[in-house]
């Protein structure tokens, strides 16, 4: 039995043929291609989940300034937001806070799990850990979520791009959003088709998102983009679970996203030469010399 697949169609065929969720096909593929046991995969998944959890918690409880000095304390501030001002419900509120937190951990040289990249590392842990904390979700379901997300990330990496320099933020936060949306659907008992529909909608909703980091740093607007990536995953998953979508198969959507990414001008692909990166106010705030000085004094 060959458990490898090249795209979403082949993945869905395997799921249907064997009556398995996406996570199980992905585990079988990993066991086969990596020549590893199910237990060793589970151990590595658990290690990733632990690191993700620390990356969230640390920034909330013990905030530090980022390398470039543009971030620090946002997740903690969200944690202390007055309850009367919380408009999202605890799951999405928690996801927004956690996404901010991982971005802070990343920007201050803490340990994170790239998922699929360091710049977009907040989306997936924020989404699946907040669901785990706020809903009746087992540890095994949480693991399944992470594995499911890796299958979607693999399909995008293989057939499209997860590089901001190549295809904009839609390739980073957009991909993370698609991965997290699919993970949520499986964690909530949805079908493999619904998982792929959620991923497709997630990509389409962030289609065209540019990569425009201020001063070229993974700080602003990356942090808040992680937050919208997390919320976007809930939106796409909720739509897919209700069988509301856009009827564009995931494979087509991955190609469309890649094509749009390559059509973006270079100024909007991680070069810090366009978008938010050239906002006059923020440029004045963080002149090159001031930023370099902050980085030198870091720690």
């Amino acid at each position, binding site marked *: 039995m060959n458990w490898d697949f090249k795209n979403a169609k082949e993945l869905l065929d395997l799921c249907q043929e064997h009556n398995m969720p996406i996570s199980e096909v992905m585990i079988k593929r990993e066991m086969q291609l990596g020549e590893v046991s199910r237990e060793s995969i589970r151990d590595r998944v658990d290690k990733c989940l632990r690191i993700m959890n620390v990356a969230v918690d640390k920034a909330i409880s013990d905030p530090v300034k980022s390398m470039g000095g543009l971030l620090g304390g946002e997740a903690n501030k969200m944690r202390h937001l007055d309850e009367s001002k919380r408009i999202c419900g605890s799951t999405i509120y928690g996801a927004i806070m956690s996404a901010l937190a991982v971005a802070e951990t990343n920007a201050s040289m803490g340990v*994170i799990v790239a*998922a699929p990249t360091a710049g977009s590392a907040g989306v997936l842990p924020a989404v699946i850990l907040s669901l785990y904390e706020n809903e009746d979700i087992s540890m095994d379901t949480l693991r399944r979520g992470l594995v499911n997300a890796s299958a979607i990330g693999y399909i995008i990496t293989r057939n499209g791009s997860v590089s901001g320099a190549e295809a904009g933020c839609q390739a980073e936060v957009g991909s993370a959003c698609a991965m997290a949306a699919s993970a949520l659907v499986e964690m909530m008992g949805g079908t493999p088709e619904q998982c792929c529909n959620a991923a497709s909608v997630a990509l389409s909703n962030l289609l065209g998102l540019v990569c425009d980091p201020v001063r070229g740093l993974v*700080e602003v607007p990356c942090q808040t983009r992680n937050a919208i990536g997390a919320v976007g995953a809930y939106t796409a998953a909720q739509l897919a679970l209700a069988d509301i979508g856009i009827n564009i198969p995931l494979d087509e959507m991955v190609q469309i996203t890649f094509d749009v990414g390559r059509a973006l001008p270079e100024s909007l692909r991680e070069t810090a030469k366009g978008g938010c990166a050239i906002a006059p106010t923020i440029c004045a705030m963080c002149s090159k010399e001031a930023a370099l000085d902050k980085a030198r004094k870091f720690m």
Partner: protein
Amino acid sequence: MSNTYIGMFDIIGPVMVGPSSSHTSGAATIAWMARQIYTGTPNSVKYTLYGSFADTYLGHGTDRALIGGMLGYKPDDIRIRKAYEHARKEGIRVEFETDRETDTGHPNTVDILMNNEIGHELLIRGVSVGGGRVRIRRINDIDVDFTGEYSTLLIGHLDKTGTIAFITNLLAEHKVNIATLRLFREAKGKNAFTVIETDSFIPEDLKEAILQHESVSSVDLIEI
């Protein structure tokens, strides 16, 4: 040893010290590979940064990652944050230089020049190609190209007839399967590097056996 398919933990990973897979994680990996290629312990290291590395290295902790990798720290090692301090303690002098003029063909390029008290000097050029993946592109004056994603044997030798046959025979005897083999040389009959990427574990005594050949000057095993 890494795998050559895109696996679960290539997507959910690497586990790394932030903030950037290319500017932090990749930088640490390049330096770690350079350290494995250098024989002995360097006491001074000079890094020349090009392109985007030159522009944004401080804000990405690229400098700390490059020092950390030289000290043997993997990309997820939190000691990277205090790499300057650790290098000082280990008696390794570090120096950074930026070069915004030279076009090296890739935006994230670094030259690492290592030296020790007896004047053993070695230059490694590495590029960080995204997602933490890297390539070594130059050793001293010789252009090379390898990734470290396989177990890699790097053999320095004179470009003389029969050297490769000697090496590949030894690999066969040790039941090491070759995935790729490439020869990079200065000029015919001059200094050369043979890079052998293998599918299996490389035993330590194989290194010693290859070193017995009169044309072979160095054998390094690189694993990331």
